[in-house]
């Protein structure tokens, strides 16, 4: 494996939990993006663990405005840079699923609809982790969180997660892709592509949260790999509306392989919930069919 760029733009000494998937993701993103960037991040885990006053982990210009307005603030920065004649500096938003799927979605939709030259990367750990694991629009079917707990009448999240990739595709973006931290070269390539195109681009990055998913710190990368290998999170790439690459799966793993490692899905393995696992397997199968992952 090659590590082409050694420069580290996320300094050590930050306050992320041991084994944090987001920290890995951001290191990889920044490494691919290089020096000429401005990063905007909404409120969330990333913001909290990187930005104590006097102890910032950021080695690139970084702006944290509010929870729900990072895309709009990034729009203003992009416009201002262009107004000043700076067409080289890339503007990147790195925001969590809460900020992206839920509270900041209007601003994201506006940003891409207006065509700002910004790469938006959603680091999706499938719940509000910064506030202590509450469901978001990205929480998958069956997952327990502190607002979708297992109870006498509850078996976790009842709805499938919002398909943000398709929603972003519907905005007619020139570049839409999904990635995980388990495939760093693929992620780096996609970040570079997203930055190279003129106009908005969107990358959906799945990043496990050890605490929220109920896994061990050392399993972060492994889980990012398993979610791909089961077909639950296909790695795909759309350029100018065309599907231009998919990460093929020779033999997709059964979803149990992925689910059984996480405490948030533990209740699915109770006998009465077997049907729920079948539902989730169906979702994976649909993905495999939709993107022809097996072929």
């Amino acid at each position, binding site marked *: *494996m*090659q*590590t082409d760029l050694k420069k*580290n733009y*996320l*300094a*050590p*000494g*930050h*306050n*992320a939990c*041991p*084994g*944090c*998937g987001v*920290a*890995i993701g951001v*290191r*990889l993103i920044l490494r691919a993006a290089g020096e000429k960037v401005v990063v905007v991040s909404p409120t969330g885990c990333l913001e909290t663990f*990187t*930005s*104590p*006053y*006097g*102890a*910032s*982990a*950021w*080695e*690139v210009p970084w702006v944290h405005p509010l929870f729900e307005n990072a895309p709009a603030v990034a729009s203003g920065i992009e416009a201002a840079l262009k107004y000043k004649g700076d067409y080289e500096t890339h503007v990147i938003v790195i925001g969590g699923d809460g900020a992206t799927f839920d509270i900041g979605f209007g601003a994201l939709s506006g940003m891409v609809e207006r065509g700002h030259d910004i790469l938006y990367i959603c680091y999706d750990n499938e719940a509000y982790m910064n506030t202590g694991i509450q469901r978001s629009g990205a929480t998958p079917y069956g997952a327990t969180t502190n607002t979708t707990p297992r109870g006498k009448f509850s078996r976790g999240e009842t709805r499938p997660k919002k398909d943000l990739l398709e929603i972003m595709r519907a905005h007619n973006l020139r570049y839409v892709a999904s990635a995980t*931290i388990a495939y*760093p070269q693929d992620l780096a390539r996609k970040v570079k592509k997203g930055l190279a195109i003129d106009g908005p681009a969107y990358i959906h990055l799945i990043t496990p949260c050890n605490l929220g998913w109920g896994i*061990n*710190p*050392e*399993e*972060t*990368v*492994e889980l990012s790999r398993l979610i791909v290998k089961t077909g639950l999170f296909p790695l795909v790439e759309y350029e100018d509306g065309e599907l231009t690459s998919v990460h093929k799966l020779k033999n997709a793993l059964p979803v149990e392989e992925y689910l059984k490692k996480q405490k948030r899905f533990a209740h699915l393995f109770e006998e009465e919930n077997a049907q729920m696992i079948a539902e989730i397997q169906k979702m994976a199968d649909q993905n495999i069919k939709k993107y022809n992952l097996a072929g």
Partner: protein
Amino acid sequence: MKLNLGGVTEAGRSKQNRTGNWRYFLPVVDQKRCNGCGTCELFCPDSAIEINNKLCLINTFYCKGCGICARECPRSAITMQVERGVAV
């Protein structure tokens, strides 16, 4: 030190923080098995690994002991060992 206007703060000052004392387990590299491929460095969330001249060096000032490096090492060259002085 006077506070900056608007809370604007300097880059990269987190380096002053010792996060190594969060650790229960320490990654120990078997340098004979290690070929310096850099997988561990790539996946280290804490930027606590340096590959220097094909040699994998763990920065214990920062390493939080998550164990991703050991789990992901393609040659199983890293093992997690109980930190001295830590009761498990």
